[in-house]
């Protein structure tokens, strides 16, 4: 069953198209990853889906309601955590919870129960009278998520919830996302972090407003890069890269820390050819050459480069 169905969703700001005919579907209970570089149009898409921005054209059904015609009904069924921190820094934890619970019309027993839950997931039991602004970033984000779902929405939109949060807090945050998803909540989450994309059941990638890839992490890796990828560890990384780029059989190159990833155009080329080229012809010492399974990063760099080239032509 699809909880979100997006159809040719488009947003123009004047002449500039921020989101360009994007279509995708999200199944109930899944964690749906929404990836793209800065300015790709992730936030704009989310803002249309939650009814803050009106689409220029196209439509989407969120929880069965049209964002164009029934935005009020859409709002009843969703939770949203914006890219900015969205709680009141000058209120205490308890005051923030009280306020948002009030806005969603929770009271009595239900309110007490949900408040307890939010405090638990944010790890803030016995700290409810602390001023929110003084909490560490990771805790704040979990409190924000807890508050955003205090009314137990069926669908949750998270816009870069983990940006600027340390790795351990990020891990904790994802545990919470998983917990929600296991409870049947559908989650659409945008992120820059590709390792986080691996936790998602389904992923879409957008670039310059256009959807350029979708599928789960495994499918993306095998469907979008057919050619072999070699990882090379050598002494002079930049020189090696320059030498490799001159070869006809080298498709794309990218640097990952001290390693070079090369996508080959020619299946006949193997590790031996690389060592021959670098060490024997150019005198660069090569520690390691290895055929690897592409990472999501390889896939995205490949796709974005391909897309950019297409746009130039």
């Amino acid at each position, binding site marked *: 069953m699809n909880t979100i169905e997006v159809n040719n969703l488009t947003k123009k700001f004047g002449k500039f198209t921020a989101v360009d005919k994007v279509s995708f579907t999200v199944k109930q209970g899944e964690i749906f990853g929404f990836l793209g570089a800065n300015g790709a149009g992730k936030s704009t898409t989310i803002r249309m889906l939650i009814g803050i921005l009106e689409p220029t054209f196209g439509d989407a059904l969120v929880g069965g309601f049209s964002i164009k015609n029934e935005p009020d009904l859409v*709002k009843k069924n969703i939770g949203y955590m914006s890219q900015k921190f969205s*709680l*009141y820094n000058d209120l205490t934890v308890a005051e923030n919870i009280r*306020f*948002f619970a009030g*806005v*969603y*019309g929770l009271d009595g027993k239900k309110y007490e129960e949900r408040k307890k839950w939010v405090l638990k997931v944010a790890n803030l039991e016995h700290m409810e009278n602390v001023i929110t602004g003084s909490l560490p970033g990771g805790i704040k984000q979990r409190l924000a998520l807890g508050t955003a779902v205090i009314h137990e929405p069926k669908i949750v939109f998270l816009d870069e919830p983990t940006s600027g949060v340390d790795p351990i807090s990020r891990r904790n945050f994802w545990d919470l996302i998983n917990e929600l998803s296991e409870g049947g909540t559908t989650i659409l989450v945008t992120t820059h972090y590709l390792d986080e994309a691996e936790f998602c059941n389904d992923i879409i990638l957008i670039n310059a407003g256009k959807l350029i890839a979708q599928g789960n992490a495994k499918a993306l890796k095998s469907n979008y890069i057919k050619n072999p990828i070699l990882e090379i560890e050598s002494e002079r990384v930049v020189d090696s890269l320059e030498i490799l780029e001159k070869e006809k059989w080298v498709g794309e190159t990218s640097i990952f820390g001290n390693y070079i990833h090369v996508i080959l155009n020619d299946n006949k080329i193997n590790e031996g050819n690389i060592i021959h080229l670098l060490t024997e012809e150019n005198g660069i010492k090569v520690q390691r050459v290895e055929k690897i399974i592409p990472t999501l990063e390889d896939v995205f760099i490949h796709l974005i480069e391909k897309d950019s080239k297409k746009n130039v032509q």
Partner: protein
Amino acid sequence: MKTILQFIIKELLQVKRDKKMLAVIFMAPILQLIFLGYAANMDVNVIHTTILDQDKTSISRDLIKQFEQSGYFKIDYYVNNYEEVTELLNEGKTLVAVVIPKDFEKKINRRETAPIQTLFEGSDGNKASIALGYIQGVTTKFSQGIVTEVKDKLGIKISLSGSLTPEVRVWYNPEMKTRNYMVPGILGLILMISTISLMSMAIVREREIGTLEQLIVTPLKPYQLLLGKLIPFTLIGFVVLVIVMVIMTQWFGIVVRGNKLFLLFTALLFVLSNLGLGLFISTVSKTQQQAMMASVFAIMMPMIYLSGFAFPIENMPSVVQYITYLIPLRYFITILRGIVLKGIGFSSLWFETIILFGMGITILIFSALRFSKRIE
């Protein structure tokens, strides 16, 4: 309703936490009132005067006597020529010199306009203009005296056209101390400043920190959001008003002669237009700084200048006078002065009250529509 209550609690908590804001809201008005109250004390009790009587007739002496008897003028010097006048003025030994020209009596007897000349040491413009007011008071009384005298003598009707050019200025205010006149105005000013700035800042701040977006995604209706802001700020505005009124009575001894409840009611009407203006500012500003600038320079300063608070509207160019009809503060100050000083009520102030109500509702609805449109 519960939702709005939550909102009000949240707003009040935020104001309570914000020490700077608290100071601005509660301390600033008190200080403003006290400073402005003293600054507004422009009463001139003694006007040091020099007389150059070139006419030396019984009528000119009558006029001089009138000056003496008015109680404001202390005639320090009688001089015989202009040089002495100039000297005294230059040395600052006298504030005013009154010159009665040679043919003063003749002109009056011929029923022509008889000018007298007054020279001021004008370094303190306010003092000088107050003195001028008193002088005109004296001359008006004097000319009326002559007119009735002549009328009595001749038994005919005489118009005032051939008189001593009386023009009653606003500063001519013998029964009323200027402070009494200014302080009620300050009340209006303070109420305006606190409500406009609170309202304009509050929404822009929510936009700036991103919580407005969060609120828009909730099922909260724009009207709930608006009431959630309007009610607490109206409350705060009233607390400020009451504090300032207490200081007015206790410190300056100015008692409200009219109905206090009526005063609070008109204040509520006035607050409507302020909150509307604050809301409007919040729809055109992106940052708190912009909102502050806009409220001070685009709204509050013009309002203060054009309300008749500091400068009498009668003295403004006529085009500007028309503009003042658009200024809510103008009506509120008239109402305040009326209630506080004259003790009048709705029967005399119904016009201002209705205008204030109409303006408040119009501005508020206009801004509210603009606001709801922008957040949808």
